[in-house]
Each structure stands twice: as C-alpha cells, then as structure tokens.
C-alpha cells in the first residue's frame, strides 16, 4: 500500500515540480521564446513522452500478453477514429477483460 507515510516525499516532489513549471514563467519571465528549434522541441515533447511511456509497456500491463495485445489493437483502432479518451480506455479495458476471461477459461 502506498500511503502518505511511505510516499509523502515523492508526492511533495511531484507537486512541487508541477507547480514550479507553471509558476516560474508567470512570476519571473517577461519575454517570449524566440528560438525556433526550442519551440519545435517543446512542441514535440508531449507526443514523444507519451509514446515512450506507452510502448512497449502497454503490452505487459495486464495479466497476460494476449489481453495486452488485444487492448492495444482496440485502443489504436478507436483512437485513429478519434473516439473520446474515456470511450477508448473503457473499450480497451473491456476487450482486455474478455480476452482475460477466454484465456482463463480455455487455456489455464
């Protein structure tokens, strides 16, 4: 169990980091960034972070590789069709549950 007593410091680190990023420009800076490379770099960062976090770990995030693969395919298809975030997540979880059920019933 992750509680305040064993993860309090980590929670503080996370909150402080997030807040400092937001407050520093407002409290200190007054100029806009001019460098195009840095602007482009910062533009790509969120996509690259999320991609790096997702692959390959998504495949191993359930009980079996099979349900991980099925959930990934469902998520990719629905996202490509630009379905809502929550719809994508719930459909993929549902697909993973069904696969998990099949695996447990027929292969275990």
């Amino acid at each position, binding site marked *: *169990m*992750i509680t*305040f007593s064993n*993860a309090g410091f*980590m*929670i503080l*680190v*996370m*909150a402080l*980091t*997030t*807040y400092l*990023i*937001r*407050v*520093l*420009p407002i*409290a200190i800076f*007054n100029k*806009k960034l001019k460098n*195009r*490379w*840095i*602007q*482009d*770099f*910062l*533009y*790509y*960062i*969120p*996509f*690259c*972070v*999320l*991609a*790096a*976090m*997702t*692959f*390959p*770990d*998504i495949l191993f*995030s*359930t009980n079996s590789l099979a349900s991980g693969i099925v*959930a*990934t395919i*469902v*998520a990719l298809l629905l*996202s*490509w069709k*630009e379905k809502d*975030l929550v719809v*994508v*997540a719930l459909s993929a*979880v549902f697909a*993973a*549950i069904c696969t*998990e*059920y099949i695996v447990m019933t027929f292969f275990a």
Partner: protein
Amino acid sequence: MDFNIRGLLSQNLENVIAYPKETVQKWERNGSIKEYKRGLMMGKAIGLGYIPVSFTFGLVAVQMGFDPWVAVIISLTNLASTGQFAGIRLIGAGASAVELSMTTLIINLRYFLMSLSLTQKLHPNMPLYKRCIVAFGVTDEIFALSAMEGEDVIFSFYTGLMTLPIIGWTLGTVLGAFASYLLPTIVQVSMGVALYCMFIAIILPPAKHSHKVFYAILIASSISIALKYIPYLNIVSQNGGGWSIIISAILGAAICATFFKISRHEEKEQEEAV
C-alpha cells in the same frame, strides 16, 4: 460590486499611463465578482469533462496500490492528467525522486510555454501572490479557454474559470478511488491497461492529421523499445523506466525539431488537439 480595487488600481496606474484606455478599464475589473461568475460559467464544461478522466485516475491509482486519499491529494496538488498518470506509474515502480521529478518536468514542460504566453496578458502590476494563484490553474483546457479572452486576462475571471475544473478533477478522483474497491478481480487486473490506452487516445488523433507528429511518435516509441531490449542499453529501463522515458522523449523531440520543422500555424492547430 468592484470592491475598493478600482481606487487602489487607479493609484497604481498613474505611474504607467502608457496603456490603452480599454485595457486599463478591463484591468480595473480584476477584483470583480461579475467577472468571477463569468469565468465560473465558462469553466463548467471543463469541470464536467474532467470527471471521467480523473475517475479513471483514481481507479488506476488505487489498483496500483495507492491509498485512495493519496490519489486525491495528488490530483488536488497537481491538476495535470498526463503528469499524474506518469507520476503514479513511476512511484508504483519504485523509481527515484530524481527520475520522478525529471519525468514530471518534461511531461509538463508545455505548461511552461502556456504560462509564458499567459504572463504577457496579465496586468504588469499584478502582485506576486495573485500571479502564483493564476499559475496553479494553467492546464491545457483552461489555458485554451483563457486564450480566447483576447489580449487581457482578468484575475477574477481566471480564478472563476479554474474553480470548477479543480473541483471536478478532485471529485472525480474521489469517486474513482473508492469505486475501485467495488470492482471484481478480473476487472481490476485489466484496469492497468486503461492508462496506456488514454495515452494512445491523446497522441494518435493529432498524428492522423500531421505526419510530423506521427514520425515523432514512431521515433520515440522505437527508441523506448530499443532501450528496453538491446543488451547493455537496457540498464536505463530498470527501476521503473523513468530514465528510458526521459532519454527517448528528449532524443525523439530533438531529432524531430531538427529534421521536421513546424510552421507556427500548424502548431496552433495541434495545441488545441492535445
């Protein structure tokens, strides 16, 4: 209606008379309750939209072994969906505080840009404590709405705008965290994938419209996969993989920034999608 702020402000503004009259009039409403209510109404949709996402956050956090109230405090103190999901993933995997801080930093780096843009629209004499309050409410959605306000952002409007999203985000986490105990085991073990599916749902739609974003995702994923499976390189993927994420993201974004330049018009469109 406007408290005494009008009198206080006009004294301050005597020193800086270079601003247009309309701008000064708008700033004078910095303490207005009417502006607060207007912000509140505009923030309603964001607040409602946050509930399902933070519900999932609460759910996933408790599934990963977090105390429900820890999840709620993380939501309340961060107000950052992607950063929070990454954070609990790293804490759960036993990553170090440096990894956590670095990952949070690069994921939330876009807030830095948003704050930077917002700061140009605030009253130059706005006191530091008010600036610190405004900074807390910089999220993708709140920033997007405040960006439509034109050249000046009023303090009471902005605080009104951020009120309901904060409530919605926290409330959703409470509901999700406690709902998690009601779910059967087979659902619980499959819930972990939800987080990654949301990441896909965030990055793939913009990639459909921009091949540059598509390449960025492809490059970053490839580096991440390489860092996990290639011998000797895979030491960075231990202890939660925080370093692997940081290296993949910085390298991926640097490659893309060098070879696929973005026209400013393109960026504005994509920002709304993320």
